[in-house]
């Protein structure tokens, strides 16, 4: 992992060498957030000549590790930093809402679950779809790997902190989860809203608590299945000039102009939707 990061850094340095006189902000981390931040960077650089924003992937944990060690200006992540990482003095910006949805193989005969049912399905208390009003069909849980940040969020919101059943399949990307649910009888899982919208009926969404993933239900707190896309900066380890540019860039990402257009188009939601929900955020 380190060597990959090194190579990447070296490549980035090579690419950026000609622009040495420009203000350069490096962004690293979540591959899910990457495209959105890249789009923001393009827009921002257009209106701010002389600023270079380089976005690369590596995963949420890489982004957090790098921003803590000063390896990049902004670390983007789908999960909160760990307590140890927090201690280093990094600063968190919640930049978007990442909503996700419950999905199942089409034909399990269940169109909605209340929060207790959903919890039981994933903890393994319920093992057949007929127990929650569906067909006589074994429930097949498809989860993310234990270390996945997405999984941690799901455990918190859907399982209310309880443990996932060990009777499960594990796939490590949204694409693999989508494929597995689409091809496995009785499968159930979570996926980013965007994937569900583009599923073409290969798998079906399941309503949660009678609420759907809309602006109204998300902002009223009726639909709690979302996490934040985070951007972390490290004021203690960043050159003040660069930090100022980075902060200005993040302010642009949080502006209504960006949030109400590009963010929505990318399948995310503006953070303003949950401004009123003070609890647990």
């Amino acid at each position, binding site marked *: *992992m*380190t*060597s990959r990061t090194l190579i990447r850094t070296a490549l980035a340095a090579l690419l950026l060498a000609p622009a040495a006189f420009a203000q350069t902000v490096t962004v690293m981390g979540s591959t899910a957030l990457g495209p959105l931040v890249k789009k923001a960077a393009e827009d921002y650089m257009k209106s701010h000549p002389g600023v270079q924003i380089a976005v690369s992937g590596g*995963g*949420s*944990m*890489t982004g*957090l*590790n790098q921003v803590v060690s000063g390896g990049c200006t902004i670390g983007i992540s789908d999960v909160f930093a*760990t307590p*140890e*990482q927090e201690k280093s003095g990094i600063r968190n910006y919640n930049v978007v809402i990442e909503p996700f949805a419950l999905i199942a193989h089409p034909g399990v005969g269940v169109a909605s679950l209340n929060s207790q049912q959903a919890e039981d399905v994933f903890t393994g208390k319920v093992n057949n779809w007929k127990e929650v009003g569906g067909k006589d069909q*074994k429930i*097949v849980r498809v989860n993310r*790997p*234990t*270390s*996945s*940040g997405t999984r941690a969020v799901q455990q918190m919101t859907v399982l209310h902190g309880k443990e996932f059943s*060990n*009777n*499960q*399949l*594990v*796939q*490590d990307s949204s694409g*693999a989860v989508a*494929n*597995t649910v689409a*091809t*496995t*009888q*009785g*499968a159930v899982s979570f996926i980013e809203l965007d994937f569900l919208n583009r599923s073409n009926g290969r798998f079906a969404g399941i309503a949660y608590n009678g609420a759907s993933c809309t602006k109204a239900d998300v902002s009223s707190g009726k639909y709690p299945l979302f996490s934040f896309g985070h951007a972390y900066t490290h004021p203690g380890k960043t050159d003040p000039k660069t930090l100022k540019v980075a902060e200005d860039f993040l302010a642009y990402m949080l502006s209504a102009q960006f949030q109400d257009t590009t963010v929505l188009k990318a399948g995310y939601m503006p953070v303003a939707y949950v401004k009123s929900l003070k609890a647990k955020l």
Partner: protein
Amino acid sequence: MPEAPDILLDTPACAPGNMPQDLLLEAPGGTPDLRHSRAQRLADRWAHLVFLACGLLVVALIGGILYFLAARGVGAFLPLAGNTDKVLTLREVFLSADWDPNAGRFGILPFIAGSLSVTGLALLIAAPTGILTGVFIAKLAPAWMKTLMRQVMDLLVGIPSVVYGIFGLMVVLPWVSGKWLSDSPAAGFAVSAAILSVMIVPTIVSLATDAFESLPLSLDEGSQALGSTRWQAIWHVLIPAARPRLLTATVLGLGRAIGEAMAIQMVIGNNPQWIALMRQSTDQTPMLRFLFTPAATLTTELVQELPNTAAGSTWNNVLFAMGLLLYLMTMLIILATRRLGQRRNA
């Protein structure tokens, strides 16, 4: 003895025995100066250095990777610099089947057992198939088919493993799920081993074919002259005669199988708690449960978890220890093949 023609005596270049010195150092007058020019010798020396550097680079890379894995992997057991978390005992890691990283339990036995099971099953399918295909290509197939089969085998080696994985995930798994003896999903050792065996069969086939082709023809002819049928000759004479090389072929297949990650992680189900799950379940007979329980191997667990764990944490270190274990296992396999090869030559 007739007198040798003059030219033989006069031209040192043709006198056997002292040719090199004469040629290079003191070619007498009249003969062409065959010494390399200064520039050529310089180029030679440089080329020598370049080759040496390339060779050393490879050795350094292998050593470097070993060092990198060991430095991080050993951190799981010793309080090294860079550790941000607690250390474990060897026993807790290598002799425990309890894997629950969030609760601080890091028994990697399920992954070792998973790797061995899936590799063993794959060999069980691939070794007989490969060896018999080898017999067919070397001894039975008509010439045109021989060429065709060889080309097909080369093609199979060239297909990227992720393609096998996609095929398994999109075609084989849905097809097997819920049919015959398997539940839905059918993810587990059976499908993984089947996919894996397709991946290692070409290796075994090409080595087995070479083994049979290198046998002296007299063995085959002799046994048939003594009245054996085709089958008897193959079974009682050819296969025993080629056995050491067939063993080498199988072990090389094993080496390829144990390191495979991408294809397997797409179809095996990646469940680290598979041993516990298998014990709890009463759905089917134990053998079927073993074949169709979602499981995990050393390689699949590395692929799934390594990108998400923080550097220096116990979890991360244990994953590196697993990588180190895989490295050492592969080394052992390679050494074993060399041993087998030496015995063959003796």
